[in-house]
């Protein structure tokens, strides 16, 4: 770590300045002393964090039977390097169950978003660690059940008594087996024991969306088991890991935190020459560029493309941003069928001799997503520098000189992880493609009205059920523009509201002549008594904006609550953010009256039964 960074950490005047310094640090290279320095600086600026950064805050609690320090410090600092403000709570040693059950515990007061549970078998099932070769099959079975019961009890306690998700560590097999090579022929194999134990953990919590398993077995293997575990500090103070392992472990925990919060990039913008293939198309020609099989370089680019295709299948949109002739590029994709990627895999193509920052801005506008949800990859340092300067919100990645390390580079990037990959993710590219068709279609109309009518939009509004929870979570966490209050509810919150009789959570699905748009909106109404009802959240995905769906939804709400349920008035709140200006005048447009506007722009509206009038929205069919 350079002296420069040390000084910048020391000299940072505010939390935000510190965040900026940290954003330049690769969290995987942190050391204890640097972590300590940043951690101290973080504490110094605690509380001075700007309102804006609160949106990027997360609270994590650590429970288990080890000494967790210094892991929480590493996680907080690694979070900071990724622009996240992470607060932590460390439970008392081996008191997980007590803390989880006691309503007066420090854990309860902390109110975590996520509880990291890590049990080591030394304490939980010492016989497995020390006398495995002395166990028979029944003994092994008994130990396995004991471990699973202990873990399940802790997890269930979090789920039932706390408004938090769980990050559960699995059990790494030791570096060496007690029976050595013969372990594989034993009736009770130590290796098989750990594999089965971890498999059972996975299947037990597979369908529980509030539980993520942290693959400690894989992580310690990745680092090297001999180096990951620290016998000396474990003997002295029950510290399980060696110093060098913490950056990797912290990085993985931060990924899980990002997944929990739904912080995910939406689009990967790629250069072509020396990025998707080797060589310059204009010089080497369609058959001269390197990609495919036959030589090493070509294989590296083939692998890189395959990895990119896998990201697309996760629901990440792809875009091309390249200085080339468009027709040459089209020829490559039609002739070079030995490439994993096809032209149709890209939702957007900006192929011209324009400045790249202009092209990237156009990509964001056309896809209707924020610049901060873009990742840009290029091999040219000058282009990367330009994007970093002109569009600092975009995550810019400069490729290393050798393509052999391109594929691994994608694995290390943050922002492409999701809790689950939904059916909707699989067809996302097609949905955006349909959007492009819609725009083309729109161009053939003179007036908006006849265009909207020609779309034949129909929407279905229904009470959210269990299957909707993940999409609801996505909409709550990821929608920025048409989001009236921008409340970022967690999965635990959503589970509560679907079971709470005073909360009415509805989801809106839409389709039109070009295809299915999926679940594109939601609204949450809270009833305090039979007379009064307030709109807590109203969210519409950006891909469904601009065709009056919000009006159709509001007409439904008016009908449902005033006509059918007999409410007398309805309250609504608008909380301004940097991004939700498209929704600013929504309640006034829908006939609500402004009651109060605070200095920060937060506005309270009301609609009484006497003022209720449905707005014309004949071009949308409500099913």
């Amino acid at each position, binding site marked *: 770590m350079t002296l420069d960074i040390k000084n910048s950490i020391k000299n940072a005047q505010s939390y935000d300045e510190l965040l900026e310094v940290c954003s330049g640090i690769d969290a995987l290279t942190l050391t*204890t002393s640097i972590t*300590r*320095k940043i951690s101290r600086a973080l504490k110094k600026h605690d509380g001075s964090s700007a309102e804006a950064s609160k949106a990027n805050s997360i609270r994590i609690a650590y429970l288990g039977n080890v000494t967790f320090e*210094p892991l929480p410090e590493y996680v907080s600092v690694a979070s900071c390097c990724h622009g996240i403000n992470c607060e932590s709570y460390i439970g008392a040693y081996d008191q997980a169950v007590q803390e989880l059950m006691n309503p007066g515990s420090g854990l309860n007061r902390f109110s975590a978003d996520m509880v990291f549970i890590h049990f080591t078998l030394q304490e939980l099932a010492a016989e497995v660690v020390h006398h495995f070769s002395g166990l028979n099959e029944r003994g092994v079975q008994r130990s396995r059940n004991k471990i699973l019961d202990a873990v399940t009890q802790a997890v269930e306690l979090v789920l039932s008594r706390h408004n938090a998700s769980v990050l559960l560590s699995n059990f790494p097999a030791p570096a060496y087996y007690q029976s050595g090579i013969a372990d594989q022929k034993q009736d009770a194999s130590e290796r098989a024991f750990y594999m089965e134990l971890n498999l059972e953990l996975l299947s037990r919590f597979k369908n529980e969306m509030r539980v993520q398993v942290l693959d400690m077995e894989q992580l310690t293997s990745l680092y090297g088991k001999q180096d990951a575990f620290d016998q*000396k*500090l474990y003997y*002295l*103070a029950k510290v399980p890991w060696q110093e060098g392992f913490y950056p990797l472990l912290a990085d993985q925990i931060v990924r899980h935190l990002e997944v929990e919060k739904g912080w995910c990039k939406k689009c990967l913008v790629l250069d072509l020459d020396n990025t998707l293939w080797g060589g310059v198309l204009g010089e080497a020609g369609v058959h001269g560029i390197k990609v495919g099989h036959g030589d090493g370089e070509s294989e590296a680019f083939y692998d890189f493309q395959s990895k990119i295709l896998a990201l697309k299948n996760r629901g990440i949109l792809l875009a091309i941003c390249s200085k080339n002739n468009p027709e040459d590029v089209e020829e490559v994709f039609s002739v070079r069928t030995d490439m994993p990627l096809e032209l149709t895999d890209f939702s957007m193509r900006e192929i011209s001799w324009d400045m790249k920052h202009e092209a990237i801005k156009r990509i964001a506008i056309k896809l209707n997503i924020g610049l901060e949800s873009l990742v840009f990859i290029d091999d040219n340092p000058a282009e990367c520098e330009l994007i970093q300067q002109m569009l600092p919100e975009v995550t810019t990645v400069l490729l290393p000189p050798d393509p052999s390390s391109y594929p691994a580079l994608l694995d290390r990037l943050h922002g492409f992880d999701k809790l689950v990959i939904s059916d909707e993710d699989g067809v996302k590219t097609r949905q955006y493609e349909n959007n492009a068709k819609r725009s083309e279609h729109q161009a053939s109309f003179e007036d908006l009205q006849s265009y909207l009518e020609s779309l034949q939009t129909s929407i279905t509004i229904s009470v959210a059920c269990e299957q909707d929870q993940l999409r609801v979570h996505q909409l709550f966490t990821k929608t920025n523009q048409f989001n009236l209050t921008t409340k970022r509810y967690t999965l635990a919150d959503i589970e509560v509201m679907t079971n709470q009789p005073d909360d009415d959570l509805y989801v809106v699905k839409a389709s039109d002549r070009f295809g299915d748009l999926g679940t594109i909106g939601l609204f949450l109404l809270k009833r305090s008594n039979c007379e009064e009802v307030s709109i807590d959240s109203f969210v519409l995905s950006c891909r469904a904006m601009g065709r009056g769906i919000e009006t159709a939804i509001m007409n439904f709400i008016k009908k449902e609550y005033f006509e059918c349920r007999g409410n007398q008035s309805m309250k609504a709140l608008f909380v301004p953010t940097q991004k939700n200006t498209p929704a600013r005048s929504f309640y006034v447009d829908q006939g609500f009256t402004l009651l109060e506007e605070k200095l920060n722009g937060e506005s309270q509206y009301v609609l009484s039964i006497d003022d209720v009038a449905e707005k014309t929205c004949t071009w949308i069919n409500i099913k």
Partner: protein
Amino acid sequence: MDFEKLKELFADTFDIDEDDVTDETSKDSLASWDSLNHLRLVTALEQDFEIALTMEEINSMTTYAKVSEYVSHRLKS
């Protein structure tokens, strides 16, 4: 050996001023020298000076003078 680096590391670990670090600074005189910060000190020393302290050394490392003695000893051996 780099005494300045050692002093800085020591001061950072216990959250004190470098000028307040003397040979006599000890576990008893320093409130922040608790068992957790002791561990932090050990790991930071091992990492930044690329040494491995023995369990015995770790347990008897109770003053700054001792810390400095063990670190230079390990650096020589």
